[in-house]
């Protein structure tokens, strides 16, 4: 039986197709102006990869900010439930997930079944998110994907003290014009953003078994800083961490469709 999850976030859309508990295909696309179109495109790409059509899917679960506007999904769940379940599918020993997405970040506690039993989510500030990293990277003429690798070469990171992304940007520019090395500024940026995420995550009582998901998890600099601040090691995931929401949604769809070991 085939079933799927579709995650339409603020920056990217992901789709995952599973077959009887196995990952069959997946796709990631940047989000366009219309949720519906983005969802459709990313789903079509994943279907094409699997050699299927929409009719071949028994059940589809939607998640992400656009979850209510995905017409081909039979039901929807919050990103919190889906990211948790996705990480659990990758590694059942995971009990805590930190998800850093485009415009929000969350910390989630899981039970032994991968179900979310507690969570926190940013609401006052988006300094600990992908968008913030994007703005700060642009200030020093770096691509978002280069911020991690470049920062790892730093030996004298700059300190960024502001908590607001806009003021952070000013501080970054000050360091930039002051002649500080790009790698040191990059590491400062990653550490500052990691601090914002850690501040949120520390408000939860999280059991050992940590995973980092979402687009920002691909930034090794942020991941390293987070591990240092929280005093933990993130478990490696066998699936692209950016796919966790869609993967978790697909797992939930499988459970609902009655697939054993979905």
């Amino acid at each position, binding site marked *: 039986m085939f079933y799927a999850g579709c995650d339409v976030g603020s920056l990217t859309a992901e789709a995952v197709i599973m077959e009887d508990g196995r990952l069959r295909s997946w796709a990631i696309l940047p989000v366009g102006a219309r949720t519906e179109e983005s969802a459709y495109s990313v789903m079509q790409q994943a279907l094409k990869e699997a050699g299927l059509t929409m009719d071949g899917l028994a059940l589809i679960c939607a998640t992400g900010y656009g979850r209510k506007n995905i017409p081909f999904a039979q039901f929807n*769940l*919050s990103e*919190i*439930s889906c990211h948790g379940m996705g990480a659990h599918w990758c590694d059942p020993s995971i009990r805590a997930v930190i998800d850093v997405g485009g415009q929000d970040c969350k910390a989630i506690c899981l039970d032994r079944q991968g179900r*979310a039993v507690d969570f926190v989510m940013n609401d006052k500030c988006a300094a600990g998110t992908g968008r913030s990293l994007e703005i700060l990277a642009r200030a020093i003429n770096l691509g978002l994907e280069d911020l991690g690798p470049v920062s790892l070469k730093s030996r004298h990171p700059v300190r960024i003290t502001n908590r607001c992304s806009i003021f952070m940007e000013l501080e970054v520019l000050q360091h930039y014009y002051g002649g500080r090395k790009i790698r040191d500024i990059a590491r400062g940026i990653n550490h500052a953003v990691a601090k914002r995420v850690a501040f949120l995550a520390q408000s939860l009582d999280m059991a050992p078994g940590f995973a980092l998901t979402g687009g920002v998890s691909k930034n090794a600099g942020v991941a390293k800083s987070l591990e240092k601040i929280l005093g933990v090691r993130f478990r490696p995931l066998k699936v692209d961490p950016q796919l966790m929401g869609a993967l978790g949604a697909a797992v939930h769809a499988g459970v609902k469709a009655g697939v054993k070991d979905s």
Partner: protein
Amino acid sequence: MDIFDEIRFIARKTQNPYLKEARSAGQKIMGYLCSYVPEEILHAAGFIPYRLRTVESLGTEKGDLYYSALNCSFVRHCFDKAVRGDFDFLDGVIFFNGCDHSRRMYDNWRDLYRERQAGPGFLHMLIAPHKISQTALNRYTDELSKLVRALEESFGLKITDQKLHNSICLYNEKRSLLAQLFAMRKGEKVPLTGAESIRLVLALSAVPVEKAVSLLEKMIDACQDRNVAKPGDLRLFMAGGCMEEADHMQLIEDQGAVVVADNLCLGARSVHTPIEEDLPPVPAIARRYLTHLSCPRMVNDFYSRSHYFEETIRDFSVDAVITDKLMFCDLWGGEAFLLKSEARRLGIPILTLEREMHGGGAGQVQTRVQAFFEKIANLTQDDA
């Protein structure tokens, strides 16, 4: 137009046909700002008490000239409407030291009146103690007597004990009908949603009390066999200060819940505790308003609020609690913290939300609330 449509219509307007009709018949309207301002005294003086509201607000740009961005968005929206002249139909406004944000509206409105020479000229500051004690009660009784005298002198009228007694009886009737309606939410059938109950209380505080009583009677009739609870809906207790945004409440309920009880300014606080009809009127009014289901402004009354919280959770079979405060509201910030530990003690799930009045962020609210409800479902599942 059925009763629900009528309530919806009244609730989303600053003014309504009943108010306009009364005004054109020569009746005066007195604005007020808080659930601690006794409508009975205003009614006995011949006014229609009108609770200031932020519906139809165009923003806070004009209000922000007087306030700072770190002030409560309810008062900023409210005062913005005042600056734009939306409340010019009022004959006066009674302000209250509920919190410093609302208390400062008195100062700003006085300045505004001096500048514009328009709008209500009678602006009265009513002060209530922040504690419940015999001394506080005596102080508040004096304060209410001062309000009576101010109304008599400014408008050339006489507020007799008989008039006060009649008003007390009328408002007790209104309170008891509303209490009866809210009590109907105890059962498995829930006759009205949280959004509808906000609209109702908002509407009732903008029409003559006689009309409010007849609207309530119609509403009770319409609710006899009504059930808005969907299968699987969680039974929710909402706590927070001023919540006028029925759509926001609807958004919360749409995630899989129905509000069955609350401690909201436009909710249970309007129905709690009748006024004793056989006591001298002003002291009786003072007693009721000082000791009814209190707002967190009353610093030594958390025990009563906590008792109400526990009792309500039990009597209304509440599954979950959401506290929803306005940003920069220190009173509800402290209360939400205390309620969190109370909820933990009672073993009931609780979620704390914060918002700007008429603000955006529906996606964030939706995600938080949906995840909260999913979490409750996860916690109640067995590990089979």
